[in-house]
């Protein structure tokens, strides 16, 4: 399994040179922020009103930027049929999946690290309970990436696979998006963390179940 993690390092090396995925994710995320900051300019004077829309705006940025990243995740493996070469290596096939999850999750984290301060600046908003907000964003992003990588592998060789990915991904990731948005919203409105624990538990269970299922079925997903 550890040998297989070289695939994630290889992807990071390729991305550090090509910067195809990361740049488009960041630009897209910032563009959404700017559009919303203009559209909601009336709210900017009130922190409580900003708090009501903040969660939605942030998660729209993360989900759509993440979808862009997921669309390109397996593209390097399809070019020159590198996926066949990986499948022939003496590594468990689900280590390919694990590597892709690590790679996209890291990209999403970087995008989030850039997006959150930009949100603060554009919406003139001071985050409270930042640690819990961070934990919810981590859990939500992980669940989204876990499902996304599996579907990305499924559709990559399909015709119009890039169109198919969001169509399949967004409904399947609703069980993670809903608690993530609700928990973030509650935290930003200043609700007590204990009243939001049910959402966090739901996120943990979803992440665990989908990760375990994806690790089990990935071998069959990449079988011709």
């Amino acid at each position, binding site marked *: 399994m550890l*040998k*297989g993690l*070289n*695939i994630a390092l*290889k992807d990071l*090396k*390729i991305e550090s*040179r*090509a910067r195809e995925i990361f740049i488009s994710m960041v630009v897209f995320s910032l563009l959404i922020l700017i559009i919303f900051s203009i559209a909601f300019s009336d709210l900017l004077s009130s922190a409580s009103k900003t708090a009501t829309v903040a969660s939605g705006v942030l998660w729209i940025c993360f989900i759509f930027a993440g979808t862009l990243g997921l669309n390109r995740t397996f593209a*390097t493996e399809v*070019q*020159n*049929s*590198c996926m*066949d*070469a*990986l*499948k*022939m*290596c*003496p*590594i*468990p096939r689900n280590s390919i999946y694990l590597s892709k999850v690590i790679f996209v999750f890291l990209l999403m984290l970087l995008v989030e690290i850039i997006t959150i301060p930009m949100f603060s600046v554009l919406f003139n908003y001071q985050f409270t309970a930042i640690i819990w907000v961070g934990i919810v964003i981590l859990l939500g992003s992980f669940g989204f990436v876990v499902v996304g990588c599996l579907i990305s592998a499924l559709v990559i060789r399909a015709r119009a696979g890039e169109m198919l990915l969001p169509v399949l991904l967004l409904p399947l990731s609703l069980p993670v998006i809903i608690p993530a948005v609700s928990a973030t919203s509650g935290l930003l409105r200043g609700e007590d963390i204990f009243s939001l624990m049910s959402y966090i538990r739901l996120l943990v269970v979803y992440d665990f179940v989908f990760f375990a299922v994806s690790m089990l079925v990935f071998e069959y997903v990449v*079988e*011709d």
Partner: protein
Amino acid sequence: MATIIYSMMGETILVAEDIFRDYGCLHALNGINLRVEEGEFIAIIGPNGAGKSTLLKIFASLISPTEGTLQIFGTKDHDREDVQDRIGMLSHETFLYENLTARENLVFFGKLYGIEHTALDERCDYLIRKIGLWKRAEDPVKNFSRGMKQRLSFARAIIHDPSLLLLDEPYTGLDMNASSLMENLLLENPAVTKIMITHDLDKAFRLCNRLLIMEDGNIVHDVGANDPNARKFAEAVCFSDGGQFKC
């Protein structure tokens, strides 16, 4: 009726019994039976759609047979990870990452095959020199010509020193020089068992000692390359469409 020969070159390394493979309602392979001995150089020839690539993909464990059993290196229904490090594959697809350098590609695949750091460095140096890309070792593969990519692809296929080399039309897109270099590389280690799909009958007869002639998912002839009837059989299948070459 297939003409079957079993050469006595060494250990049996591959046994296929009644291999069927369907793609939906399309029957790509219809009961393949085959035995491959160590050190053989086998050419698989036949027209398009005969099932050659499907058979090779099954040997490479890229796909599973719909029915039948495959034994490679004595491992029944091969436990993939145990035998994968003894199989290499060279295809007309390069299996290379365009944004990595030649050396990085070899190092990456070497690590996946579990080669230790120092040994891997030495192996990469050796292979890069051998394929004549020493001066371009640190260049990204996207800047390489087709011939250079194919040479690097050959190095990638043998980075782990496999005992069985599967070759799927390795000469596609190569000019005469690159083709001749590839030929030399292939012939260099006779101990390695090679199974090659090719559309070039002359190359098949020159390089290989056994020919599998396939048609409609079956091996219709299994003959030694020195067999006086071999060329007749091969041409009968490849030229069977009113004299038009179908391969």
